[in-house]
Protein backbone atom coordinates (compact mmCIF):
# COMPACT_ATOMS: atom_id res chain seq x y z
CA UNK A 1 0.00 0.00 0.00
CA UNK A 2 1.48 3.28 -1.05
CA UNK A 3 1.53 5.92 1.64
CA UNK A 4 0.21 9.32 0.70
CA UNK A 5 2.76 12.06 1.26
CA UNK A 6 1.49 15.49 2.22
CA UNK A 7 3.27 18.63 1.10
CA UNK A 8 4.71 20.72 3.97
CA UNK A 9 2.31 23.52 3.09
CA UNK A 10 -0.63 21.16 3.41
CA UNK A 11 0.53 20.07 6.86
CA UNK A 12 0.93 23.72 7.76
CA UNK A 13 -2.71 24.35 6.82
CA UNK A 14 -3.72 21.22 8.72
CA UNK A 15 -2.00 22.57 11.85
CA UNK A 16 -4.12 25.72 11.72
CA UNK A 17 -7.28 23.74 10.95
CA UNK A 18 -6.62 21.34 13.84
CA UNK A 19 -6.48 24.21 16.30
CA UNK A 20 -9.38 26.02 14.66
CA UNK A 21 -11.75 23.07 14.51
CA UNK A 22 -10.89 21.09 17.61
CA UNK A 23 -10.36 23.89 20.14
CA UNK A 24 -14.10 24.04 20.98
CA UNK A 25 -14.09 20.25 21.35
CA UNK A 26 -11.30 20.43 23.92
CA UNK A 27 -13.13 23.22 25.76
CA UNK A 28 -16.32 21.19 25.72
CA UNK A 29 -14.55 18.07 26.93
CA UNK A 30 -13.00 19.99 29.82
CA UNK A 31 -16.31 21.61 30.77
CA UNK A 32 -17.99 18.19 30.72
CA UNK A 33 -15.30 16.61 32.88
CA UNK A 34 -15.40 19.52 35.28
CA UNK A 35 -19.15 19.15 35.73
CA UNK A 36 -18.70 15.43 36.34
CA UNK A 37 -16.09 16.09 39.03
CA UNK A 38 -18.52 18.43 40.74
CA UNK A 39 -21.27 15.83 40.62
CA UNK A 40 -23.29 17.57 37.91
CA UNK A 41 -24.37 16.03 34.64
CA UNK A 42 -22.84 18.93 32.72
CA UNK A 43 -23.17 20.11 29.15
CA UNK A 44 -22.50 17.68 26.33
CA UNK A 45 -19.02 17.69 24.90
CA UNK A 46 -20.12 19.30 21.63
CA UNK A 47 -21.95 22.15 23.39
CA UNK A 48 -19.38 24.85 22.44
CA UNK A 49 -20.08 24.18 18.71
CA UNK A 50 -23.82 24.67 19.28
CA UNK A 51 -23.11 27.83 21.24
CA UNK A 52 -20.95 29.21 18.44
CA UNK A 53 -23.56 28.30 15.78
CA UNK A 54 -26.25 30.03 17.80
CA UNK A 55 -24.16 33.15 18.36
CA UNK A 56 -23.24 33.44 14.67
CA UNK A 57 -26.94 33.56 13.78
CA UNK A 58 -27.66 36.40 16.19
CA UNK A 59 -27.42 40.11 15.49
CA UNK A 60 -24.51 42.27 16.63
CA UNK A 61 -25.29 45.03 19.08
CA UNK A 62 -22.75 47.84 19.36
CA UNK A 63 -22.76 50.30 22.28
CA UNK A 64 -23.72 53.81 21.16
CA UNK A 65 -20.37 55.46 21.83
CA UNK A 66 -18.20 52.63 20.57
CA UNK A 67 -16.12 53.15 17.45
CA UNK A 68 -14.87 50.71 14.82
CA UNK A 69 -12.32 49.35 17.31
CA UNK A 70 -15.14 47.52 19.05
CA UNK A 71 -15.86 45.56 15.87
CA UNK A 72 -12.30 45.11 14.61
CA UNK A 73 -10.76 44.04 17.94
CA UNK A 74 -12.27 40.53 18.11
CA UNK A 75 -11.41 39.93 14.44
CA UNK A 76 -7.77 40.94 14.92
CA UNK A 77 -7.54 38.68 17.96
CA UNK A 78 -9.05 35.78 16.05
CA UNK A 79 -6.58 36.26 13.19
CA UNK A 80 -3.68 36.31 15.65
CA UNK A 81 -4.82 32.96 17.04
CA UNK A 82 -4.83 31.62 13.48
CA UNK A 83 -1.22 32.74 12.93
CA UNK A 84 0.35 31.22 16.05
CA UNK A 85 -0.28 27.55 15.12
CA UNK A 86 1.99 28.04 12.11
CA UNK A 87 4.94 28.78 14.40
CA UNK A 88 4.68 25.99 16.94
CA UNK A 89 5.01 22.20 16.71
CA UNK A 90 1.35 21.22 16.56
CA UNK A 91 1.58 18.05 14.49
CA UNK A 92 5.13 17.44 13.31
CA UNK A 93 8.53 16.89 14.87
CA UNK A 94 10.23 18.63 11.95
CA UNK A 95 9.90 22.38 11.39
CA UNK A 96 7.51 23.37 8.60
CA UNK A 97 8.43 26.17 6.15
CA UNK A 98 6.74 28.94 8.13
CA UNK A 99 7.97 27.51 11.44
CA UNK A 100 11.09 29.66 11.21
CA UNK A 101 9.00 32.81 10.78
CA UNK A 102 8.96 33.42 14.51
CA UNK A 103 10.48 32.00 17.68
CA UNK A 104 8.90 31.61 21.11
CA UNK A 105 9.07 35.37 21.62
CA UNK A 106 7.47 35.92 18.23
CA UNK A 107 4.59 33.63 19.15
CA UNK A 108 4.35 35.36 22.50
CA UNK A 109 4.16 38.76 20.79
CA UNK A 110 1.32 37.61 18.55
CA UNK A 111 -0.58 36.19 21.52
CA UNK A 112 0.02 39.47 23.36
CA UNK A 113 -1.24 41.40 20.32
CA UNK A 114 -4.44 39.35 20.43
CA UNK A 115 -4.84 40.11 24.13
CA UNK A 116 -4.23 43.78 23.40
CA UNK A 117 -6.87 43.83 20.65
CA UNK A 118 -9.47 42.23 22.93
CA UNK A 119 -8.57 44.64 25.73
CA UNK A 120 -8.95 47.63 23.39
CA UNK A 121 -12.31 46.38 22.15
CA UNK A 122 -13.44 45.93 25.74
CA UNK A 123 -12.19 49.35 26.83
CA UNK A 124 -14.03 50.88 23.86
CA UNK A 125 -17.44 49.80 25.21
CA UNK A 126 -17.41 52.13 28.18
CA UNK A 127 -18.90 49.33 30.27
CA UNK A 128 -17.28 49.42 33.74
CA UNK A 129 -16.75 45.69 34.10
CA UNK A 130 -15.33 45.24 30.61
CA UNK A 131 -12.89 48.06 31.29
CA UNK A 132 -11.99 46.61 34.67
CA UNK A 133 -11.35 43.26 32.99
CA UNK A 134 -9.14 44.70 30.29
CA UNK A 135 -7.18 46.76 32.80
CA UNK A 136 -6.59 43.71 35.02
CA UNK A 137 -5.75 41.44 32.09
CA UNK A 138 -3.10 43.90 30.90
CA UNK A 139 -1.66 44.30 34.41
CA UNK A 140 -1.35 40.59 35.11
CA UNK A 141 -0.16 39.98 31.57
CA UNK A 142 2.71 42.37 32.25
CA UNK A 143 3.46 40.72 35.60
CA UNK A 144 3.73 37.22 34.12
CA UNK A 145 5.97 38.50 31.31
CA UNK A 146 9.29 38.17 33.24
CA UNK A 147 8.60 34.48 33.76
CA UNK A 148 7.97 34.01 30.03
CA UNK A 149 11.21 35.84 29.26
CA UNK A 150 13.23 33.64 31.58
CA UNK A 151 11.56 30.53 30.16
CA UNK A 152 12.74 31.71 26.74
CA UNK A 153 16.25 32.32 28.11
CA UNK A 154 16.31 28.77 29.47
CA UNK A 155 15.27 27.35 26.12
CA UNK A 156 17.95 29.48 24.47
CA UNK A 157 20.61 28.29 26.92
CA UNK A 158 19.67 24.64 26.42
CA UNK A 159 19.28 24.60 22.65
CA UNK A 160 21.23 27.70 21.55
CA UNK A 161 18.14 28.78 19.58
CA UNK A 162 14.77 29.87 20.81
CA UNK A 163 12.68 27.95 18.35
CA UNK A 164 10.12 25.74 20.08
CA UNK A 165 10.89 22.87 17.67
CA UNK A 166 14.43 22.58 18.97
CA UNK A 167 13.48 22.48 22.63
CA UNK A 168 11.04 19.68 21.83
CA UNK A 169 13.69 17.84 19.81
CA UNK A 170 16.20 18.18 22.66
CA UNK A 171 13.72 16.76 25.16
CA UNK A 172 12.92 13.92 22.75
CA UNK A 173 16.55 13.04 22.08
CA UNK A 174 17.09 11.12 25.32
CA UNK A 175 15.55 10.49 28.70
CA UNK A 176 18.35 12.35 30.47
CA UNK A 177 17.47 15.44 28.42
CA UNK A 178 13.81 15.13 29.32
CA UNK A 179 14.43 14.87 33.06
CA UNK A 180 17.33 17.32 33.38
CA UNK A 181 16.58 19.74 36.23
CA UNK A 182 16.49 22.85 34.03
CA UNK A 183 13.96 21.25 31.69
CA UNK A 184 11.73 20.15 34.57
CA UNK A 185 11.90 23.60 36.17
CA UNK A 186 11.06 25.37 32.94
CA UNK A 187 8.20 22.94 32.24
CA UNK A 188 6.78 23.62 35.69
CA UNK A 189 7.17 27.38 35.23
CA UNK A 190 5.42 27.21 31.87
CA UNK A 191 2.66 25.14 33.49
CA UNK A 192 2.06 28.01 35.92
CA UNK A 193 2.12 30.51 33.05
CA UNK A 194 -0.53 28.48 31.20
CA UNK A 195 -2.60 28.29 34.38
CA UNK A 196 -2.51 32.09 34.49
CA UNK A 197 -3.07 32.72 30.80
CA UNK A 198 -6.03 30.38 30.47
CA UNK A 199 -7.72 32.05 33.42
CA UNK A 200 -7.83 29.05 35.73
CA UNK A 201 -7.83 28.74 39.49
CA UNK A 202 -5.84 29.92 41.49
CA UNK A 203 -5.82 33.04 39.32
CA UNK A 204 -9.38 33.25 38.08
CA UNK A 205 -12.63 31.33 38.37
CA UNK A 206 -13.39 30.84 34.71
CA UNK A 207 -17.01 29.77 35.11
CA UNK A 208 -17.99 32.42 37.62
CA UNK A 209 -20.62 35.07 37.01
CA UNK A 210 -19.27 37.33 39.73
CA UNK A 211 -17.81 40.34 37.96
CA UNK A 212 -15.50 41.48 40.75
CA UNK A 213 -13.40 38.33 40.59
CA UNK A 214 -13.14 38.36 36.81
CA UNK A 215 -10.03 39.11 34.81
CA UNK A 216 -10.16 37.71 31.27
CA UNK A 217 -13.84 36.81 31.35
CA UNK A 218 -15.00 40.34 32.07
CA UNK A 219 -13.56 41.67 28.83
CA UNK A 220 -16.20 40.01 26.68
CA UNK A 221 -19.25 41.06 28.72
CA UNK A 222 -20.36 43.80 26.31
CA UNK A 223 -19.98 41.85 23.08
CA UNK A 224 -22.82 39.94 21.47
CA UNK A 225 -23.66 37.89 18.40
CA UNK A 226 -20.93 36.93 15.92
CA UNK A 227 -18.35 39.16 17.62
CA UNK A 228 -18.92 37.37 20.91
CA UNK A 229 -18.70 34.07 19.03
CA UNK A 230 -15.30 35.12 17.66
CA UNK A 231 -14.12 36.03 21.15
CA UNK A 232 -15.31 32.73 22.61
CA UNK A 233 -13.83 30.73 19.78
CA UNK A 234 -10.62 32.74 20.06
CA UNK A 235 -10.27 32.07 23.76
CA UNK A 236 -10.82 28.34 23.14
CA UNK A 237 -8.09 28.49 20.47
CA UNK A 238 -5.75 30.38 22.77
CA UNK A 239 -6.28 27.74 25.43
CA UNK A 240 -5.51 24.95 22.97
CA UNK A 241 -2.44 26.78 21.62
CA UNK A 242 -1.06 27.09 25.14
CA UNK A 243 -1.82 23.42 25.85
CA UNK A 244 -0.02 22.49 22.63
CA UNK A 245 3.01 24.52 23.65
CA UNK A 246 3.00 22.98 27.11
CA UNK A 247 2.62 19.41 25.88
CA UNK A 248 4.49 19.38 22.58
CA UNK A 249 7.41 21.55 23.63
CA UNK A 250 7.93 20.93 27.33
CA UNK A 251 6.04 18.11 28.99
CA UNK A 252 5.45 15.34 26.45
CA UNK A 253 6.86 16.09 22.99
CA UNK A 254 6.09 12.54 21.89
CA UNK A 255 3.39 11.28 19.56
CA UNK A 256 3.99 13.84 16.82
CA UNK A 257 4.30 12.92 13.17
CA UNK A 258 7.91 12.20 12.24
CA UNK A 259 7.19 11.92 8.51
CA UNK A 260 4.92 13.61 6.01
CA UNK A 261 2.68 10.59 5.43
CA UNK A 262 -1.05 11.13 5.77
CA UNK A 263 -1.46 8.36 8.33
CA UNK A 264 1.19 9.75 10.66
CA UNK A 265 -0.30 13.24 10.48
CA UNK A 266 -3.83 11.98 11.18
CA UNK A 267 -2.51 9.93 14.09
CA UNK A 268 -0.76 13.05 15.39
CA UNK A 269 -4.06 14.96 15.29
CA UNK A 270 -5.79 12.27 17.34
CA UNK A 271 -2.85 12.10 19.76
CA UNK A 272 -2.86 15.88 20.11
CA UNK A 273 -6.56 16.00 21.03
CA UNK A 274 -5.97 13.21 23.54
CA UNK A 275 -3.00 15.03 25.07
CA UNK A 276 -4.86 18.34 25.19
CA UNK A 277 -7.78 16.66 26.97
CA UNK A 278 -5.34 15.04 29.42
CA UNK A 279 -3.79 18.42 30.22
CA UNK A 280 -7.30 19.84 30.55
CA UNK A 281 -8.13 17.05 33.01
CA UNK A 282 -5.14 18.03 35.17
CA UNK A 283 -6.22 21.66 35.09
CA UNK A 284 -9.75 20.63 36.01
CA UNK A 285 -8.52 18.67 39.02
CA UNK A 286 -6.50 21.72 40.12
CA UNK A 287 -9.57 23.86 39.51
CA UNK A 288 -11.61 21.70 41.85
CA UNK A 289 -8.94 21.25 44.52
CA UNK A 290 -7.85 24.81 45.24
CA UNK A 291 -9.57 28.07 45.92
CA UNK A 292 -9.08 31.27 44.00
CA UNK A 293 -6.42 33.63 45.25
CA UNK A 294 -7.48 37.09 46.31
CA UNK A 295 -6.74 39.57 43.55
CA UNK A 296 -3.84 41.17 45.37
CA UNK A 297 -2.37 37.77 46.22
CA UNK A 298 -2.04 36.80 42.56
CA UNK A 299 1.38 38.42 42.58
CA UNK A 300 2.52 35.59 44.89
CA UNK A 301 1.59 33.13 42.18
CA UNK A 302 3.52 35.17 39.62
CA UNK A 303 6.51 35.26 41.97
CA UNK A 304 6.44 31.46 42.20
CA UNK A 305 6.47 31.10 38.40
CA UNK A 306 9.30 33.64 38.18
CA UNK A 307 11.28 31.79 40.87
CA UNK A 308 11.12 28.50 38.93
CA UNK A 309 12.08 30.14 35.64
CA UNK A 310 15.00 32.10 37.10
CA UNK A 311 16.34 29.04 38.95
CA UNK A 312 16.43 27.19 35.63
CA UNK A 313 18.57 29.96 34.12
CA UNK A 314 20.83 30.10 37.19
CA UNK A 315 21.64 26.39 37.33
CA UNK A 316 22.34 26.43 33.58
CA UNK A 317 24.57 29.44 34.07
CA UNK A 318 26.70 27.50 36.57
CA UNK A 319 27.22 24.77 34.03
CA UNK A 320 24.58 22.40 35.34
CA UNK A 321 20.94 22.06 34.49
Amino acid at each position, binding site marked *: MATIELAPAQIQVLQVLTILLFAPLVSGGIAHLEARLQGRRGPRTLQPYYDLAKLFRKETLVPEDASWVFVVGPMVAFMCYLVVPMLIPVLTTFPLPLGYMGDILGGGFILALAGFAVALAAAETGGPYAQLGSSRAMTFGALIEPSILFITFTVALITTTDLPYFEAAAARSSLSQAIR*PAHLLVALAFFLVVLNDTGRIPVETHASTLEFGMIDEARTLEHSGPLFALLKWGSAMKQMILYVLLVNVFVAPWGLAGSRSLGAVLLAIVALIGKALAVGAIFTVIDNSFSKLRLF*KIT*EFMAAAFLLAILAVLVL*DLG*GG
Partner: protein
Amino acid sequence: MVVVPPVPSSFSGGTEAIALVVLLTEFAMLRAPTARSQIRLYAFQSLAVSALAVFVAATQHIDELYVLAALSFVLKVVVVPGIVLRLLRGTRADLAGSNRFGVATMVLVAIGISVFGFFVVGNLSVHSHSLPAPAFGLATAVILVAFLLVILRSDVVSQAVGFFSLENGVSMASLVIAAGIPLIVEVAFLFDLMVAVVVFGVLMRVHHGRGRTLSTEALDRLRG
Protein backbone atom coordinates in the same frame (compact mmCIF):
# COMPACT_ATOMS: atom_id res chain seq x y z
CA MET B 1 20.38 19.49 12.25
CA VAL B 2 19.25 19.46 15.87
CA VAL B 3 22.16 20.18 18.17
CA VAL B 4 21.88 17.88 21.17
CA PRO B 5 22.97 19.93 24.16
CA PRO B 6 25.23 18.43 26.84
CA VAL B 7 23.50 17.00 29.86
CA PRO B 8 24.99 17.11 33.37
CA SER B 9 26.39 13.79 34.60
CA SER B 10 24.05 11.71 36.73
CA PHE B 11 25.95 12.64 39.92
CA SER B 12 25.84 16.34 39.14
CA GLY B 13 22.23 16.19 37.92
CA GLY B 14 21.07 14.19 40.91
CA THR B 15 22.69 16.43 43.52
CA GLU B 16 21.36 19.43 41.65
CA ALA B 17 17.79 18.10 41.60
CA ILE B 18 17.82 17.36 45.34
CA ALA B 19 19.47 20.73 46.05
CA LEU B 20 16.71 22.43 44.04
CA VAL B 21 14.08 20.70 46.18
CA VAL B 22 15.88 21.95 49.30
CA LEU B 23 16.02 25.52 47.96
CA LEU B 24 12.36 25.51 46.89
CA THR B 25 11.41 24.26 50.37
CA GLU B 26 13.37 27.17 51.83
CA PHE B 27 11.31 29.56 49.68
CA ALA B 28 8.15 27.78 50.79
CA MET B 29 9.16 28.34 54.43
CA LEU B 30 9.60 32.01 53.66
CA ARG B 31 5.97 32.27 52.63
CA ALA B 32 4.43 29.58 54.86
CA PRO B 33 1.39 31.05 56.59
CA THR B 34 1.58 29.26 59.95
CA ALA B 35 4.35 28.25 62.32
CA ARG B 36 3.29 24.62 62.13
CA SER B 37 3.49 24.50 58.35
CA GLN B 38 6.97 26.02 58.58
CA ILE B 39 8.08 23.23 60.87
CA ARG B 40 6.59 20.57 58.60
CA LEU B 41 8.45 22.14 55.68
CA TYR B 42 11.62 22.05 57.75
CA ALA B 43 11.11 18.34 58.36
CA PHE B 44 10.61 17.81 54.63
CA GLN B 45 13.73 19.83 53.84
CA SER B 46 15.76 17.76 56.29
CA LEU B 47 14.41 14.63 54.63
CA ALA B 48 15.72 15.95 51.30
CA VAL B 49 19.14 16.65 52.84
CA SER B 50 19.23 13.11 54.26
CA ALA B 51 18.30 11.80 50.82
CA LEU B 52 21.18 13.84 49.38
CA ALA B 53 23.55 12.20 51.87
CA VAL B 54 22.32 8.76 50.79
CA PHE B 55 22.68 9.73 47.13
CA VAL B 56 26.24 11.01 47.60
CA ALA B 57 27.12 7.94 49.67
CA ALA B 58 25.82 5.62 46.96
CA THR B 59 27.39 7.39 43.99
CA GLN B 60 30.75 8.29 45.58
CA HIS B 61 31.00 5.06 47.62
CA ILE B 62 31.53 6.75 50.99
CA ASP B 63 29.94 4.44 53.54
CA GLU B 64 30.31 6.87 56.46
CA LEU B 65 27.67 9.06 54.87
CA TYR B 66 25.01 6.40 55.41
CA VAL B 67 25.59 6.84 59.16
CA LEU B 68 25.31 10.60 58.73
CA ALA B 69 22.11 10.21 56.71
CA ALA B 70 20.57 7.99 59.37
CA LEU B 71 21.60 10.37 62.16
CA SER B 72 20.33 13.43 60.38
CA PHE B 73 17.08 11.64 59.52
CA VAL B 74 16.44 10.72 63.14
CA LEU B 75 17.44 14.12 64.50
CA LYS B 76 16.23 16.58 61.90
CA VAL B 77 13.17 14.83 60.50
CA VAL B 78 11.81 13.24 63.65
CA VAL B 79 13.27 14.66 66.87
CA VAL B 80 13.76 18.40 66.24
CA PRO B 81 10.40 19.04 64.49
CA GLY B 82 8.75 16.89 67.18
CA ILE B 83 10.29 18.93 69.99
CA VAL B 84 9.42 22.26 68.38
CA LEU B 85 5.85 21.17 67.65
CA ARG B 86 5.55 20.06 71.28
CA LEU B 87 6.81 23.42 72.47
CA LEU B 88 4.26 25.13 70.29
CA ARG B 89 1.40 23.13 71.73
CA GLY B 90 -0.87 25.46 73.61
CA THR B 91 0.40 28.59 71.91
CA ARG B 92 -2.02 30.61 69.89
CA ALA B 93 -1.77 29.56 66.25
CA ASP B 94 -0.62 32.80 64.68
CA LEU B 95 -1.40 33.29 61.05
CA ALA B 96 1.38 35.00 59.22
CA GLY B 97 0.72 38.46 60.54
CA SER B 98 4.41 38.61 61.15
CA ASN B 99 5.63 39.59 57.71
CA ARG B 100 7.38 42.91 57.39
CA PHE B 101 6.83 42.75 53.63
CA GLY B 102 4.25 41.11 51.41
CA VAL B 103 4.92 37.58 50.25
CA ALA B 104 5.69 38.57 46.65
CA THR B 105 8.19 41.21 47.81
CA MET B 106 9.90 38.73 50.13
CA VAL B 107 10.17 36.17 47.36
CA LEU B 108 11.61 38.77 44.97
CA VAL B 109 14.18 39.91 47.55
CA ALA B 110 15.05 36.26 48.16
CA ILE B 111 15.42 35.67 44.42
CA GLY B 112 17.73 38.68 44.26
CA ILE B 113 19.92 37.40 47.07
CA SER B 114 19.98 33.87 45.58
CA VAL B 115 21.18 35.33 42.29
CA PHE B 116 23.92 37.10 44.26
CA GLY B 117 24.88 33.79 45.87
CA PHE B 118 24.99 32.10 42.48
CA PHE B 119 27.23 34.78 41.02
CA VAL B 120 29.57 34.58 43.99
CA VAL B 121 29.91 30.83 43.54
CA GLY B 122 30.31 31.29 39.79
CA ASN B 123 33.15 33.76 40.30
CA LEU B 124 34.97 31.67 42.91
CA SER B 125 36.33 29.74 39.94
CA VAL B 126 36.58 26.49 41.82
CA HIS B 127 37.04 23.96 39.08
CA SER B 128 36.96 20.40 40.17
CA HIS B 129 35.98 17.20 38.49
CA SER B 130 33.80 16.04 41.32
CA LEU B 131 32.36 19.35 42.47
CA PRO B 132 28.90 20.00 41.11
CA ALA B 133 29.00 23.80 40.92
CA PRO B 134 25.21 24.25 40.59
CA ALA B 135 24.53 22.25 43.75
CA PHE B 136 27.13 24.38 45.58
CA GLY B 137 25.45 27.51 44.28
CA LEU B 138 22.07 26.21 45.40
CA ALA B 139 23.46 25.45 48.88
CA THR B 140 24.78 29.03 49.08
CA ALA B 141 21.36 30.29 48.05
CA VAL B 142 19.72 28.16 50.77
CA ILE B 143 22.01 29.71 53.38
CA LEU B 144 21.32 33.27 52.18
CA VAL B 145 17.55 32.74 51.99
CA ALA B 146 17.65 31.21 55.50
CA PHE B 147 19.23 34.46 56.69
CA LEU B 148 16.41 36.37 55.01
CA LEU B 149 13.87 34.15 56.74
CA VAL B 150 15.39 35.13 60.07
CA ILE B 151 15.57 38.81 59.14
CA LEU B 152 12.29 39.41 57.34
CA ARG B 153 9.81 37.44 59.41
CA SER B 154 9.31 38.72 62.87
CA ASP B 155 8.21 35.75 64.89
CA VAL B 156 10.25 33.47 67.08
CA VAL B 157 9.37 30.28 65.23
CA SER B 158 10.54 31.71 61.89
CA GLN B 159 13.81 32.69 63.50
CA ALA B 160 14.29 29.23 64.96
CA VAL B 161 13.29 27.46 61.75
CA GLY B 162 15.46 29.87 59.76
CA PHE B 163 18.45 28.99 61.90
CA PHE B 164 17.77 25.25 61.66
CA SER B 165 17.42 25.39 57.90
CA LEU B 166 20.64 27.42 57.76
CA GLU B 167 22.25 24.31 59.23
CA ASN B 168 20.59 22.28 56.48
CA GLY B 169 22.16 24.57 53.88
CA VAL B 170 25.60 24.25 55.49
CA SER B 171 25.42 20.48 55.69
CA MET B 172 24.25 20.35 52.08
CA ALA B 173 27.23 22.47 51.03
CA SER B 174 29.58 20.20 52.96
CA LEU B 175 28.02 17.16 51.30
CA VAL B 176 28.60 18.48 47.80
CA ILE B 177 31.99 20.13 48.29
CA ALA B 178 33.70 17.80 50.69
CA ALA B 179 31.78 14.56 50.86
CA GLY B 180 34.79 12.83 52.36
CA ILE B 181 35.30 14.98 55.47
CA PRO B 182 35.49 12.95 58.66
CA LEU B 183 32.21 11.87 60.15
CA ILE B 184 33.06 13.51 63.46
CA VAL B 185 33.02 16.96 61.82
CA GLU B 186 29.63 16.34 60.25
CA VAL B 187 28.27 15.07 63.53
CA ALA B 188 29.60 18.20 65.22
CA PHE B 189 27.26 20.23 63.00
CA LEU B 190 24.38 18.13 64.24
CA PHE B 191 25.51 18.70 67.82
CA ASP B 192 25.45 22.45 67.16
CA LEU B 193 21.92 22.00 65.99
CA MET B 194 20.93 20.31 69.25
CA VAL B 195 22.33 23.24 71.21
CA ALA B 196 20.40 25.61 68.98
CA VAL B 197 17.19 23.65 69.56
CA VAL B 198 17.61 24.01 73.32
CA VAL B 199 18.39 27.74 73.05
CA PHE B 200 15.51 28.47 70.70
CA GLY B 201 13.21 26.26 72.75
CA VAL B 202 13.96 28.31 75.85
CA LEU B 203 13.54 31.53 73.84
CA MET B 204 10.16 30.43 72.53
CA ARG B 205 8.86 29.35 75.91
CA VAL B 206 10.10 32.44 77.74
CA HIS B 207 8.93 34.81 75.06
CA HIS B 208 5.52 33.22 74.86
CA GLY B 209 5.26 33.04 78.62
CA ARG B 210 6.03 36.74 79.05
CA GLY B 211 4.38 38.25 76.04
CA ARG B 212 1.55 35.82 75.26
CA THR B 213 2.68 35.97 71.66
CA LEU B 214 5.33 34.54 69.38
CA SER B 215 5.84 37.78 67.49
CA THR B 216 9.11 39.58 68.06
CA GLU B 217 7.34 42.88 67.41
CA ALA B 218 6.36 42.72 71.06
CA LEU B 219 9.94 42.53 72.31
CA ASP B 220 10.19 46.28 72.93
CA ARG B 221 7.34 46.00 75.41
CA LEU B 222 9.57 43.94 77.70
CA ARG B 223 11.57 46.98 78.86
CA GLY B 224 12.06 47.71 82.53
